[in-house]
């Protein structure tokens, strides 16, 4: 986590996923929903990248495209594998992908629907080991027991079914399954949003410990900005399928440069005694990605918008080292971060 090396593990370049919109009797294609539209970022080894945004902004689609759980329509996802070297996940063939996936795992949001109720913990956590011919029989049980202990569950529970466990325990089972193959990248899609406050803290600590122990990299998808601040080394914000800002965590929270980030940060309810605070309330709703506004997607809700914003689409540019923003006025605006 606090390691100095910042060798990239994963480089996402111009990732795209367009869903066709079909209409009419002949299912003629009438346009695209641009769910992910030109997203690029880098995840260094042993670091955590937080991916935030409102629902429908494409953060989950991005996460799944990286693992090719959804087929992306364009762009590159370069994974620096220890054996294979730098491989593009998007264009990898079946065999390479199979090898790559051992190093890329996922933790899901809902611990109730992501575990098969008819499989025991041994089956669930052991499945990746069996599929990849890593272990079987006695050895498999030993390995599963070790994994369960690692995430704070008792190995004796191995023959039980998921229904016997609480939400927090189930999330631990999901984490054990993700770690079964010693991956290097874990994509966590809202891993704590379904959990209670006290269980959420336990799970976040566990993820942090495991990162230190195994030098894992995380892509942490979440909508809770205080959780993301706590776990991430860098943060990227998405809006209507596009990346609008990305920076190191401190910089991001203290000196946001995109008006959307400012509004997001200001909307977070703070758990502290009443302070009179000027809140930026965004009007309207997130536009339909099938029919996005012209120019900058955010301009209809932006309080700083000017004529150019509805005409020209701003590109993502580096405004300070490591701080990328897609806004025409990023240089001129002074925006409020969290104090």
């Amino acid at each position, binding site marked *: *986590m*606090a390691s100095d090396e910042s060798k990239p593990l994963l480089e996402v370049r111009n990732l795209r996923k367009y869903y066709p919109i079909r209409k009419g009797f002949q299912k003629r294609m009438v346009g695209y929903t641009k769910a992910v539209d030109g997203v690029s970022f880098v995840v260094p080894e042993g670091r955590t990248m937080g991916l935030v945004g*409102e*629902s429908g902004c494409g953060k989950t689609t991005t996460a799944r495209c990286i693992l090719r759980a959804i087929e992306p329509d364009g762009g590159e996802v370069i994974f620096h594998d220890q054996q294979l070297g730098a491989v593009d996940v998007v264009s990898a063939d079946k065999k390479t992908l199979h090898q790559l996936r051992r190093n890329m795992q996922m933790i899901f949001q809902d611990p109730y629907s992501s575990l098969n109720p008819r499989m025991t913990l041994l089956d669930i956590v052991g499945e990746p080991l069996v599929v990849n011919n890593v272990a079987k029989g006695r050895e498999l049980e030993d390995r599963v027991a070790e994994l369960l202990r690692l995430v704070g569950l008792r190995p004796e529970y191995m023959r039980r079914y998921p229904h016997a466990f*609480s939400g*927090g325990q189930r999330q631990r089972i999901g984490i054990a399954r993700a770690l079964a193959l010693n991956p290097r990248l874990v994509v966590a899609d809202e891993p704590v949003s379904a959990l*209670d*406050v*006290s*269980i*959420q*803290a*336990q799970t*976040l*600590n566990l993820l*942090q410990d495991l990162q230190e122990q195994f030098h894992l990299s995380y892509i942490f998808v979440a*909508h809770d*900005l*205080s*959780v993301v*601040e*706590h776990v991430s080394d860098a943060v990227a914000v998405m809006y209507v399928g596009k990346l609008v800002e990305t920076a190191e*965590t*401190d910089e991001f*929270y*203290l000196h946001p440069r995109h008006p959307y980030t400012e*509004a*997001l*940060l*200001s*909307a*977070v*309810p*703070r*758990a*502290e*005694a*009443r302070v009179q605070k000027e*809140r930026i*309330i*965004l009007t309207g*709703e*997130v536009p339909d990605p099938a029919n996005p506004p012209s120019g900058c997607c955010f301009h209809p809700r932006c309080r700083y918008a000017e004529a150019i914003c509805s005409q020209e689409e701003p590109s993502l540019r580096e405004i300070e080292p490591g701080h990328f923003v897609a806004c025409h006025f990023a240089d001129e605006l002074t925006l409020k*971060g*969290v*104090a």
Partner: protein
Amino acid sequence: MVLDRREGEALIEVNDLKTYFFLDEGTVRAIDGVTFDIRRGQTLGVVGESGCGKSVTAQSILRIVPHPGRIVGGSILLHRYSGSGGNSQVESVVDLTSLNPRGDQIRAIRGAEIALIFQEPMTSFSPVHTIGNQIMEAILLHRRVSKSEARGIATDMLRRCGLPRAEDVINRYPWELSGGMRQRSMIAMALSCQPSLLIADEPTTALDVTTQAQVLNLMRDLQEEMGMAIMYITHNLGVIAEVAEEVIVMYLGKVVERTDVNSLFNDPRHPYTQALLRSIPKLGRRSRTRLDTIKGMVPDPYNIPRGCPFHPRCPQARDGLCNVQEPQVVDVGGGHLVSCLLIKGQ
């Protein structure tokens, strides 16, 4: 605060309420001796983790506790006022626990005097009726108006709840609307009969932060305008800081602390409240340190620990005291109530 002038006028008084669920596996004491009150125009926040009984409290007030649950003790007094503003007087007091849950009396109160907003607006609206028809149903049931008047009231309420093109939205089905719009429609429906108490059960949990901020603002504005009291149930301490004036913290069917919102955050006294506050990541206080956690998890509801229910997880628990004796509620000053054996005066 605009509403301070009404301070002291009790609207709801809950006394030693007990709601148990009688299951084959045993008795679940979902609420076990809860006492609190809500004054007119006040916002009471109810915090706690899942299973602490916060939703069952709301269900008990409305008398919609699902089978096999039953209110087995205590009282819920609803004070009714005549007239409005400063010169209103108590007209009558009803004990809601004494009413037949299927009777006319409680039905006249539900939706009219006490309204409820649910967590998930998608599942709480009927998908086969338009938004307008569902709001009008409530209005026609409780108010003596014609159908076209009811339609007018519904449109007006939707507009006041910030829905653009209300006359168009009224003809829409719930699934045609976004989450935020649906929750606004839900609020419009709840407020269409001008209730004196609005119970909001996790109304913004399913929404994005930006939409949540919009909805919280809306509720605050409407409260100022219409003067209803709000009982706001949530597990999110940030939202509590935003909306509530008074807060009760619940754990395993009991109120462990009750205080005003500022001292909840500045001077929490119960170890559970303190631990809860420490376990949430706070915005703008970035540190790569570990979060403080509450060890273990909420115990199985069939066998709640003896003594103080929090003692197995409490970092300050004293053996021979906390696992034996049941704590009483103590006033630590200024109406700040705590139920902990380690507080002086026990």
